[in-house]
């Protein structure tokens, strides 16, 4: 029994595995975007940041262990850190550009998608072929079951756990701390923030940079955990989906967590169903995340009220 196929149980298990495995990039990018948008700016460029993070983490992890003599246990973690820093650099460019007078942050964001992915592809050319050391897993499944499928599904990355912990922490940060209040004030009512004596530019600059740091770490997860490889199709639009996800989560970090888990899980629906032999409508299953998003958007939207929870200054071009 144990070594045999698990049949239809493979579907929920596959979805669970997909949830635990591939929701972290969504989580990090959406938390980063949430922070950015709370301060009243949109950073669409996180797709580029995600790719840049994936590339730099993979590159550092590979170079560190192969060329610079670091231990293969340490170099992926340094890769994660460098990915975050690479994200911060892109974030700084976005923050600086989008706060120039009469500059539209969405336009800058689109430019940053192209710039970030272009730089990542250019610098990443030599790293497509080599194999970089990967981040370790917590083997939770090994304690609970001896079915290999379950063991594999319950391999949990520490990076994912950090992301899960970060969501409530960020929620608390916004609600109960002074800097959190400043960020909300800058995002909701810049004039009030100015009256409080808070520098709008500085707050936004810091928020965008910190948000991009998180997105960079999301990229590191892609290349060092799952799928664990660097190539030019690695993000497949996850950065952009995560930005949309923030709206879906109503700018609430804890809801960002649920939304990310949901997206990660639905991504696995197509492959899991095909593996048990449900093979009609492949393309429909592969489109499941988008279909479900549309459905939920339709169910939750209402013509009578505007989006609740949206920061007041979002989308306005004010100093």
């Amino acid at each position, binding site marked *: 029994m144990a*070594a*045999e*196929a*698990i*049949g239809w149980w*493979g579907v929920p*298990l*596959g979805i669970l*595995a*997909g949830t635990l*495995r*591939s929701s972290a990039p969504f989580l990090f990018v959406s938390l980063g975007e949430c922070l950015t948008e709370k301060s009243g700016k949109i950073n669409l460029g996180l797709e580029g940041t995600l790719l840049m993070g994936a590339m730099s983490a993979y590159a550092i992890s590979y170079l560190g262990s192969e060329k610079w003599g670091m231990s293969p246990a340490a170099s992926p973690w340094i890769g994660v850190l460098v990915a975050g820093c690479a994200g911060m650099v892109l974030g700084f460019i976005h923050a600086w550009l989008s706060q120039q007078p009469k500059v539209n942050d969405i336009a800058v964001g689109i430019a940053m998608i192209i710039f970030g992915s272009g730089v990542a*592809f250019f610098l990443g*050319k*030599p790293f*497509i*072929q080599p*194999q970089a050391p990967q981040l370790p897993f917590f083997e939770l499944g090994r304690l609970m079951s001896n079915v*290999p*499928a379950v063991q*594999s*599904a319950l391999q949990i990355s520490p990076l994912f756990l950090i992301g899960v912990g970060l969501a409530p922490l960020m929620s608390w940060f916004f609600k109960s701390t002074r800097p959190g209040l400043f960020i909300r004030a800058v995002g909701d009512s810049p004039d009030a923030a100015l009256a409080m004596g808070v520098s709008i530019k500085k707050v936004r600059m810091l928020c965008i940079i910190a948000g991009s740091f998180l997105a960079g770490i999301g990229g590191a997860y892609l290349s060092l955990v*799952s*799928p*664990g*490889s660097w*190539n*030019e*199709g*690695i993000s*497949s639009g*996850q950065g952009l989906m995560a930005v949309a996800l923030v709206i879906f989560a109503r700018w609430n970090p804890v809801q960002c967590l649920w939304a990310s888990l949901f997206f990660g899980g639905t*991504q*696995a629906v*197509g*492959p*899991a169903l*095909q*593996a*048990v*032999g449900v*093979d*009609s*409508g*492949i*393309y429909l299953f*592969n489109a499941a995340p988008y279909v479900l998003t549309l459905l939920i958007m339709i169910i939750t939207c209402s013509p009578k009220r505007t989006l609740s929870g949206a920061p007041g200054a979002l989308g306005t071009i004010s100093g």
Partner: protein
Amino acid sequence: MRNIRSIYVPRRQVIRGLLATAAFGATSKLWTGCSSDSATSNSTTESGSGTGSSDQPLVLGFLYVGAKDDYGWSQAHALGVKEIGNLPGVKIVEQASVPETKDVQEVMRSMIDEDGATAIFPTSFGYFKPHILEMAKQYPAVQFFHCSTLWEAGMPENIGNYYADTDEGQFVAGRVAAQTTKTGKLGFVAAKPVNPVIRNINSFIMGARSVKPDVKIQVIFTGDWLEPVKEEQATNSLADQGVDVIGVHVDSPKVVIETAEKRKIFSSGYHADQTDLAPKGYLTGTTFYWAEFYKNYVDMIKAGKKVMDGSIPRVIQGSMKEKYIKLAPFGPAVSEAAKKDAEDAEAKIADGSLLVYTGEIKDNTGKVRIPKGTAYKMTDPVLDKIDWLAEGVQGSVS
């Protein structure tokens, strides 16, 4: 205040706007205006080089859809190109990661206009229509060689095709897989249900069932050529279902092979040799050896032959016999008996006594698709019409 301001347009702004428009016009003229005059200028240089001077190097342009070291389709081509790059009197112009959009045309144009390429090899399937057709019309003196068998009568005469059929390689790899599997369940991660992919799945299972008739294969289509996240999930889902050998046909099999190795199951590769990615679980794989084609083309073009007048064949096609297709070195999990069997099968295929498509072949709904007594050679155009999955495949093409 505001109204007045918007009516009054500052002089500086006007000058700046005019300059920007002029700059835009100057640069964009290169793109739109050259279609007619550069085609003529190119045909003159072409005729000049064709008549006499052989001291000029032969310039060949190569375009890849992916990176040159992606362990996949593009790497296989780039390896072949590397071998001809060392030949005397040959200059290679390469560009990797060219998307199957209008960009292809611009890259080809610049290779012809700027670098003086006289033969272009766009290696990706999707470059053909409409991009190559369009460029071939615009540059009638340049030869285009596309890696497919898509040319049909009525299309520009300066397009040639070359292709290596992988069915025979997949057939032998399937035999190896069947002799290695313990569960009798194979898996296949495929990109899209199109003819070359379907044929590879079919010949893989037909090879496997020629050893063990009860072997089954579960196919997962990811929907596109490069979908790393889905490829990983597909491989994991297959492993969850007790599959212990995974075949693959996506643009870059790296993620699938690595994931299979992580799950401690076997994998059978495609495009290029992936032994390094899975030192334990890699069985073998169908690999292309494009260098054979490219050497051949260099010789023919240097001898002044042209596809336009028929001195270069319209389609050059081959497979294992011509050494266009080889099996990757066997991994440690392949038994001695299986190795011997694979070598025998290869020899039989090479001398023509074993044809992959020999009836009776049924599809996976039980319908007879190739009747008893009928056998098709690899180059038979009937095979390009295959849109059904063979018996033993669990999956569907729609």
